[in-house]
């Protein structure tokens, strides 16, 4: 026994992310009270997420605001701003995900107008963001047909928490080896409840489905 006295075991039984989850709940209540619907947007780099957002900002008949959680450059934020939406960029530093506290600080800066649609563009990776509730109302995962159709099986954590999966860049299907049906099966295997949409953000094809989902209050 060491000199600083007896060792005592203290039972905690506390959720590791209790603090984050409490902050996330507060964020969600704040947003809901202002009639703002928040979407946590997750993908790997190169999924065409920014192009989809630019187009959404231009075409959706509802004010859009964006929290941009990109580690790399302000380029994506500049594109969204040029499309006409207020943007706040969050510097996650070495962090691989946004958390509820970062989201709250960004919300205070951004102050999105009541009744708007808020996109939180999470850091581009398909593992870490799945653990952290930001206070969003729905989670969207974007994959593109230039990635593997087995992506849902390789990153099941992320696909398992998605309310909606958007398969983007369908205009490239003639040029790539991507089996949409197989991808849909893999998504259904890890998350039977997820909605799946196929779109081309650059061509605009089937984007009405996306806009309908966004305004439908699903999730």
């Amino acid at each position: 026994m060491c000199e600083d006295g007896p060792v005592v075991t203290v039972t905690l039984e506390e959720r590791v992310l209790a603090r984050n989850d409490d902050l996330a709940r507060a964020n969600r209540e704040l947003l809901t009270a202002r009639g703002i619907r928040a979407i946590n947007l997750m993908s790997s780099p190169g999924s065409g997420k920014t192009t989809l957002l630019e187009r959404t900002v231009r075409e959706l008949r509802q004010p859009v605001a964006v929290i941009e959680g990109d580690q790399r450059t302000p380029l994506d934020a500049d594109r969204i701003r040029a499309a006409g939406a207020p943007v706040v960029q969050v510097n996650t530093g070495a962090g691989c995900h946004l958390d509820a506290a970062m989201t709250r600080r960004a919300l205070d800066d951004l102050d999105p107008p009541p009744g708007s649609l808020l996109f939180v563009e999470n850091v581009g990776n398909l593992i870490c963001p799945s653990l952290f509730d930001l206070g969003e109302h729905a989670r969207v995962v974007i994959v593109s047909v230039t990635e593997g159709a087995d992506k849902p099986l390789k990153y099941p954590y992320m696909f398992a928490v998605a309310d909606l999966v958007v398969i983007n860049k369908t205009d490239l299907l003639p040029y790539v080896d991507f089996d949409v049906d197989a991808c849909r099966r893999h998504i259904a295997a890890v998350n039977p409840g997820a909605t799946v949409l196929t779109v081309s953000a650059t061509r605009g094809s089937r984007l009405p489905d996306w806009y309908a989902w966004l305004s439908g209050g699903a999730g």
Partner: protein
Amino acid sequence: MHELAIAENIVDTVCTRAAGRPVRRVTVRIGALTAVLPDAMRLCWDLAATGTAAHGAALDLDLRPAVVFCRACRTDQRLPDMIPLCPCGSADVTVTTGRELHIVSMEVA
């Protein structure tokens, strides 16, 4: 490396609860369906604890497998992967263990 953020969360919580007493050991329960890798957690632990009341504390991991209850064949089944499917072929299952991410207990001096 979200395990570092997770480890920092745990260190914050136990140090607050320890109220200045040195923390000797922390037990954490991790389910197989969380995106937290045990090896990465062990790697991050010392780094997260350095300079805090949990400096040098041992980390015990209580690893829980992914188990589902199948309503079709009314059995508990351990999943070999992240796919919520019973070996009987039914997807009508409820996850019973595997989603845990809890600080179970700590030892303080």
